[in-house]
């Protein structure tokens, strides 16, 4: 597929905008911002060319004109926030945003999803992230992590770490189980967050497009394991992720997450209920389902996310895919790296909630 040109503009945080660009090299969002910025402060009579509606101009000019006193205004940030929020709502109401072919919606991530997850990352779990220098600033890479904690918050926190703390603010394209795309409400949110189905086709396509892809090969076996088996990595699937990395030549960046095991300590699994609901497991934690919805609040454990040095696959060559021994070796290497890093960070951690 010919890569669709991306918007040339930078977002407010200085990242590259990922929206598809129109003929002028800008996406719909930034085209309007550029038109707004180019406009002189007093109300301009005529709409500039390429603008969809004169009404948008009037609104923008009112918004951008400075008030009577341009002195320090304590409400300035609040007004800026309100302006941005209202602009966002307006865009959503009119459908003026663009998603990529996987359904990734950077506008929604920036304004809704990331702000929702950020407090969990910063305050609730006080995530400490190390080794971000091991994640390339551009080009494809496959981030592979350990999976735990009943709900896939570990994947989301790794994504927040890369979006907020990586110098290139890279969006992580998470590969998820098909259950995620079958559940109402979850399905469209997953797509909009940039998640796609964990299958070789999608992973290959994303890596070929130069994206940063995240995979948790333990799947449900890791996510739904009982608390007593915490921090013991499960089988790493059948090594499909290594195959994809070899085919595309993308480096594998192992990531070890400590803290996710304690958020929902699963003491039992109600298999029958799970089967009835079509879920892979139905967790019983000390608080859930005993306390009802309150029990669904995760425990505030202390988290450490560590990215390990990348394992290069490009020098093995794409023919290595045909050799099952190579696949097993690389899979084990990734798994051992994560397991060791998890143990090191566990030793270093003062306490579960430290």
């Amino acid at each position, binding site marked *: *597929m*010919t890569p*669709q040109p991306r918007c040339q503009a930078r977002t407010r945080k200085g990242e590259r905008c990922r929206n*598809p660009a129109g003929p002028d090299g800008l996406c719909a969002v930034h085209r309007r911002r550029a038109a707004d910025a180019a406009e002189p402060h007093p109300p301009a009579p005529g709409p500039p060319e390429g603008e*969809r*509606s004169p*009404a*948008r101009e*009037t*609104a923008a000019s*009112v*918004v951008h004109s400075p*008030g009577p006193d341009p002195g320090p*205004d*304590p*409400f300035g940030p*609040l*007004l800026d926030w*309100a*302006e941005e929020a*209202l*602009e966002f*709502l*307006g865009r*959503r*109401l*009119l*459908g003026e*945003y*663009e*998603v*990529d*072919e*996987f*359904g990734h*919606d950077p506008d929604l991530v920036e304004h809704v999803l990331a702000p929702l997850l950020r407090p969990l990352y910063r305050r609730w779990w006080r995530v400490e992230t190390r080794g971000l220098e091991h994640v390339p600033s551009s080009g494809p890479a496959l981030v592979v992590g350990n999976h735990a904690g009943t709900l896939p918050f570990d994947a989301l926190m790794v994504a927040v770490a890369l979006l907020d703390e990586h110098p290139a603010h890279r969006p992580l394209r998470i590969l998820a189980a*098909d259950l995620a*795309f*079958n*559940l*109402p*409400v*979850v*399905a*469209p949110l997953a*797509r*909009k967050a940039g998640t*796609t*189905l964990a*299958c070789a*086709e*999608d992973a290959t*396509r994303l890596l070929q497009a130069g994206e940063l892809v995240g995979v948790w090969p333990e799947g449900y076996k890791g996510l739904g394991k009982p608390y007593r088996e915490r921090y013991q990595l499960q089988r790493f699937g059948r090594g499909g992720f290594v195959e994809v990395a070899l085919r595309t030549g993308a480096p594998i960046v192992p990531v070890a997450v400590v803290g996710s095991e304690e958020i929902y300590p699963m003491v039992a699994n109600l298999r029958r209920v799970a089967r009835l609901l079509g879920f892979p497991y139905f967790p019983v934690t000390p608080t859930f389902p005993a306390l009802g919805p309150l029990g669904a609040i995760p425990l505030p454990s202390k988290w450490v996310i560590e990215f390990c040095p990348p394992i290069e696959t490009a020098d093995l060559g794409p023919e290595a895919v045909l050799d099952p021994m190579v696949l097993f070796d690389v899979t084990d290497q990734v798994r051992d790296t994560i397991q060791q890093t998890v143990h090191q960070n566990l030793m270093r951690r003062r306490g579960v909630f430290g």
Partner: protein
Amino acid sequence: MGRRVLVTGAARTTGRRLVAALAEDPEVERVVAVDDLEPEQPFPAKVEHLAVDLRSPAMVRTVQSAGIDTCVHLGVTAEPRAAGGRVSMKERNVLGTMQLLAAAYHAPDLRRLVLKSTTAVYGSGAGDPAVWTESMTAETPRHGFGKDSIEVEDYVRSFDRRRPDVAVTVLRLANQVGPTVDNPLTRYFELPVCPTVLGFDPRLQFLHEEDTADVLLRATTGPVVPGTFNVAGDGVVLLSQAIRIAGKPPLPIPEPLAGRVAELVGRTVDFSPEQVRFLQYGRVADTSAAADQLGFLPKWSSLQAFEDFASRLHRLITEDQVLRLEHEALNFLRRAVGRTTQ
């Protein structure tokens, strides 16, 4: 000697456009338009209208006798009610194709066969890859148009094997929209409210009617490129986004009731049941093969195509209203803040 082209399903929007374009082409000597429906506007003078069903013997005689060198099969329909019920629709789609191919097998001058197929052959499901390429095979759609189209493609492929001297081009088109398009999906967006499946927001692709006409014309009169190609506008549009661009309020229906509602809605928009799955899971196809091999780049992106179609709709929520609200809310905040700072 000029080209002699036979077009089936010629009386509907797409067919009419293609037939008109072929009639204007000086390279084309003869155009035979087959459709048992009367076209809304009469065909150009050069066109011979054969008002018969594909399954009739007259059809067979024409294909064999008129020295047809190119056959364009547009006669597969997605509208059960217009076709006289689902059973009749299947008869027309599948048996009509079989008859056409049987006749074509004995047509000595035939060199090119173009089939208008659909991306519906990929079905729609939660476990689908995000983007379909032509070589992937789906968990087969079990109903309606998608299933018919798979069967039609199978017969065409088998024809391809038996007549290696005929170049077969299969075009899998995404959902068509445009100012004059009238199909179940466009009628859906013309409803006063758009029912959706609660908690789902599928990715859709659209193809503008001008691009549909272009790609069919290119496959018919352009260089011979055998193969199967997905054809769709660039990019994707989410259903929620499309509904907002159409300016309609969405009406989310819980999944268990969706079938029931679809039945009701189906009476007005001529829906078939698999369309519900389409509105739940959507579908996106990779169009790079069409770009690389067929050399076809659509002029309209999915979003542009949809916006062009939506401009004819009566919007319940307009851009001006939203912008005025945005503006008023900001001014209100400004005033409120201004009062407290002074």
